[in-house]
């Protein structure tokens, strides 16, 4: 057993402790229904921001279509559970797979585009997905899909989130993840070092889309009804904000970003008229004073004091 594996187990252990504490507080009624739902949303948003970070932060491909993939996962999921009575797990996986397939199909042609052109193309594709769903009467069209079973529970959101984080963390710390990061840093040099840049862009895009789809499935089963207006490009902006606020290329950042954004939004719920104004100002001020986000390119585990403690422990 080596250090890396030990750290992994430590992380999982920590996750289980956090889970036990929160679950305990929920069963004891210390957390009310409002905050319980918000904790669910935080976990789902962490899945979305971590997966978007894989595309935007690690691979450096500016995607603004995350809400579209989320919508695909959500609708595939609810149709399978509500109309076909599939087990929840299978429905989630199918939703993720559908989003991944779409991500792959969309990614192949569009990932040739650079920077802002890719951003606007993915934004457009996200909107096209939403508009198409709006026009499918089978799933309720613009009015929405009703009668969804309430299948999302705390263990589901928490452990799917933990799974997502582990997958993304392991991916970026492998040769495949390094290939993606190399593309972000310098695409021409990456290609010259033997990285099939198209392939890895599509891989990052597909994995990101898959998790967005799964998150969509979890999100949809929190409610009785979902409708296409939950998946507009404004939602994609929100996930982008989480990623950038937390810090591009940092998983710790994605967690922090999803937490902060969801928390601010929930905490201000009692002042609806000021909520968005304060949010907007907070966003602008954060970009002024920390344009790289809370944890730009840095993980919690790499920060000074923790690093030093590790060094004392004799590991590099």
């Amino acid at each position, binding site marked *: 057993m080596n250090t890396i*594996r030990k750290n992994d187990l430590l992380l999982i252990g920590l996750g289980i402790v956090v889970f036990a504490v929160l679950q305990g507080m929920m069963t004891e009624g210390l957390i009310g229904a409002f905050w319980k739902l918000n904790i669910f949303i935080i976990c789902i948003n962490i899945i979305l921001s971590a997966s978007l970070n894989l595309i935007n932060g690690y691979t450096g491909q500016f995607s603004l279509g995350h809400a579209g993939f989320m919508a695909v996962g959500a609708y595939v999921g609810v149709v399978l559970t509500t109309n076909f009575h599939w087990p929840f797990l299978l429905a989630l996986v199918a939703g993720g797979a559908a989003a991944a397939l779409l991500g792959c199909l969309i990614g192949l042609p569009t990932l040739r585009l650079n920077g802002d052109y890719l951003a606007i193309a993915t934004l457009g594709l996200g909107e096209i997905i939403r508009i198409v769903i709006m026009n499918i009467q089978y799933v309720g069209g613009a009015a929405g899909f009703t009668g969804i079973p309430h299948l999302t529970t705390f263990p589901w959101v928490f452990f799917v989130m933990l799974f997502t984080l582990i997958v993304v963390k*392991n991916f970026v710390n492998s040769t495949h993840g*390094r290939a993606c990061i190399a593309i972000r840093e310098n695409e*021409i*040099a*990456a290609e010259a*070092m033997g*990285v099939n840049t198209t392939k890895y862009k599509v891989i990052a895009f597909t994995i990101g889309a898959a998790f967005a789809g799964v998150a969509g499935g979890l999100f949809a089963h929190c409610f009785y009804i979902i409708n296409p207006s939950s998946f507009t490009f404004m939602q994609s902006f929100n996930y982008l904000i989480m990623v950038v606020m937390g810090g591009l290329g940092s998983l710790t950042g994605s967690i922090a970003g999803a937490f902060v954004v969801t928390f601010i939004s929930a905490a201000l719920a009692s002042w609806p008229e000021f909520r968005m104004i304060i949010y907007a100002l907070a966003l602008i001020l954060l970009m002024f004073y920390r344009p790289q986000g809370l944890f730009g390119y840095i993980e919690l585990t790499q920060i000074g004091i923790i690093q030093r403690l590790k060094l004392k422990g004799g590991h590099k």
Partner: protein
Amino acid sequence: MAELLKTNHVSKMFGGLKAVSDFDVYINQGELIGLIGPNGAGKTTAFNLLTGVYQPTSGTITFDGKSLLGMKPYQITQHGIARTFQNIRLFSELSVLDNVKIAYHSHVKYGLLEAVFRMGRYFQEEQEVTEKSLELLKIFKLADKAYETAKNLPYGAQRRLEIARALAAQPKLLLLDEPAAGMNPQETQELMEMIRWIRSQFGLTILLIEHDMSLVMGICERIYVLEYGQIIAHGVPEEIKHNPDVIRAYLGGEA
């Protein structure tokens, strides 16, 4: 000696402009060849043709018995040609070590699932990559800077890191695009020795573009001279030095 690289009448047009025309070179296994020429002669374009960044308008390129036409740059790298860049292109926000590790990419065999679930070959191969990378860094006197961010390295060290990174791709043929650009005479001298040494150590074949005549004349076995996209001279350093066309190209005038 076996022929490693051969180009046949390679030309590249940009719009109406012939950047390189009838570029014919051959490189044998183990040779150290220089490609020189005045600014804008098409040297870097020639490199870009060899590495697949550009596709030739006409002509053929054969490497190790295979045609390179139509191959993407990453495929050519995987076939055994690695390069450095004239304008340094490091992965500047990453550590020196990660820069080198990335170049091992095409030699790592574990798959996506093995990476994501950390099973199978993952740990062993990762360890190997790290060890090999550190060894390379040691050779290039960068081992003590392994965990520094690449962009914070001094200029000369960045140039050395580019070569180290190219070597990590385990090429048969190494293309160096002005490796001594911006170096002082002493650094250039050290670089010359290093290039000679890595060639023998790694059994490499090297093609280098250079402005610094002393470096080229000092270490290259044969030299091609390019002017206005055409090869105007070819031979051993002594011949090139006295070739009237080369003198004219470099010094101007009606020689």
